[in-house]
C-alpha cells in the first residue's frame, strides 16, 4: 500500500472543521489539523475549509496569519483545495449585504448573492465538469451537497496563451449558473461540501489526493 498522503486541514476557527478531517482520513490521508506555518506550508496537500460569511472567514484567515500561505503554496506548486467559503475566498472579492470584502485574489471574479427564488441553495445538486477534469473523474454525473447563498456567477479567467494550461471550470445552477469548482494547476476549489457528499464526495477527495 502506498504511503498515505500528508494533508493539513487549516484550522482557523471555522465551524465544523472536524468533518473535513474525518472525511479525508476516511479516504486514507494522513491528516493534521493545524494553523502552524510549517504544517500548512510543508504538507503535501492543504485543505482550506470554510463555513459562514466571506468577511468572517477572511478575518479569521488574517488573524491566524494565513493570508499569504495559500499564495505561497501555489507559487511553489504545492496543492491546495478550498471548500465552500474556502472556495469563495480564492476569488477577488465577496459582496454580502452590499459590503465588499477583498478575497485572496488567486482568481478574478466576485462572489455575489444567487438570484434564486429559494436561498440558501441547500441540498444535492448536479454539476457540469469539463472534459479535462481530474477532481470529478468517474463522478461526473453524481450529485454533491451544497449549502450557500453566494457564488461566483461569471468566470473571467480566460487563458489565451497557448502554453498555459487553461483552468478546468465546473458549473452548477441555482437561479443562475455559477462556478461550482475550479482546477487550476496546484490550486483547486469547490463550492459544495465533498466531506458531506457521501460516496461521491469521498471519491472527489480521493481524486484530489491522487494529484498530490
Amino acid at each position, binding site marked *: 500500500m502506498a504511503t498515505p498522503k500528508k494533508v493539513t486541514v487549516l484550522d482557523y476557527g471555522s465551524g465544523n472543521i472536524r468533518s473535513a478531517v*474525518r*472525511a479525508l482520513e476516511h479516504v486514507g490521508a494522513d491528516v493534521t489539523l493545524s494553523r502552524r506555518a510549517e504544517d500548512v506550508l510543508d504538507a503535501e496537500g492543504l485543505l482550506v475549509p470554510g463555513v*459562514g460569511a466571506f468577511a468572517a472567514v477572511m478575518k479569521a484567515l488574517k488573524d491566524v496569519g494565513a493570508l499569504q500561505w495559500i499564495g505561497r503554496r501555489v507559487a511553489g506548486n504545492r496543492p491546495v483545495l478550498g471548500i465552500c467559503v474556502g472556495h469563495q475566498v480564492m476569488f477577488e472579492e465577496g459582496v454580502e449585504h452590499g459590503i465588499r470584502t477583498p478575497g485572496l485574489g488567486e482568481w478574478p471574479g466576485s462572489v455575489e448573492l444567487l438570484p434564486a427564488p429559494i436561498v*440558501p441553495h*441547500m441540498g444535492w445538486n448536479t454539476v457540469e465538469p469539463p472534459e479535462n477534469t481530474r477532481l470529478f473523474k468517474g463522478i461526473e454525473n453524481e450529485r454533491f451537497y451544497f*449549502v450557500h447563498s453566494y457564488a461566483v456567477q461569471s468566470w473571467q479567467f480566460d487563458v489565451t496563451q497557448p502554453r498555459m494550461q487553461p483552468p478546468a471550470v465546473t458549473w452548477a445552477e*441555482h437561479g443562475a449558473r455559477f462556478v461550482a469548482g475550479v482546477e487550476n494547476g496546484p490550486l483547486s476549489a469547490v463550492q459544495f461540501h465533498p*466531506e458531506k457528499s457521501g460516496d461521491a464526495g469521498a471519491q472527489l477527495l480521493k481524486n484530489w489526493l491522487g494529484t498530490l
Partner: protein
Amino acid sequence: MTVAIRVIPCLDVDAGRVVKGINFEGLRDAGDPVELAKRYNAAGADELTFLDVTASSGNRETTFDVVSQTAEEVFIPLTVGGGVRAASDVDRLLRAGADKASINTAAVARPEVINEITERFGSQVLVLSVDARRTTDPGCPSGFEVTTHGGRTGTGIDAVAWAKEAAERGVGEILLNSIDADGTKEGFDLDMIRAVRAAVKVPLIASGGAGKPEDFPPAIAAGADAVLAASIFHFGPVDMIARVKQAIKEAGFPVR
C-alpha cells in the same frame, strides 16, 4: 440541473438511545442511533436529523457522544435538535460533529436567539422547527398556530408570521411540522405548506402525516424543498427511502 428534493429520516434519541422503536431486521442493535444512521445513509437518505428528547439535561452529554460517533462514520449532513437554547449549545453540537442545529421552543420564548446564533455561525447552521396546528383564533389570521411541548401548548402566535419573522432574523431553513397531521398517516397538511411557502424564501422541510410514498409528491407540489418523516421509515420496509424517492421522481421532481 435542479437541486434534488431531500428525503430526511428523523430519529428520536433519549439518553443516547433511539426511542419510538425501530422495526428493522438484521440490525445488531436497533436502539443504537449510530447503527441506524449508517443504515439510513446506505439506504439513500439525503440528510439525517436527530431529535434529542432526553428529559433531564444531565443525560444530554450522551447526545454529544452519539453525534460525534455518527459523524465519524456517516458523511452526509446531520441536524440535531432538542435542548438548543443558546449559541453556546450550537457551538457544542457543531464541535461534536453536527452540521446544523434545530431550534423550537427557545426561539419562540426569545426570538433574538436566532440572530445571536446565525450571526455567529451563519444562516445555514440553523433550522427553525415549527410545530403548528389549525386554529380559529382571530390572533392567527393564517389559520395556523404555533404550539410548543409537542403540540400540547398553544402560543397564540400565527405560524406563518412566525416563520416569516424567523427567516428575517436569519434561520437558513424551516422545518414545518403539522401537529394535526402528525401520526395520522393520511398525508401532509398541504394548506399549511402552501401558506408558509408563500411567506418565506428559505428552504422548507415538510413533516407530519406521511403514511405512504404517494403522500410525498403533493407536499413537494405545495412548496416543500425537503421532506422529513420518522415512523414510515422506522416501521416500513428497508427500501422505503428508495420507494419514497421513486414516487417523488415519478411525479416529476428531481431526487438524488
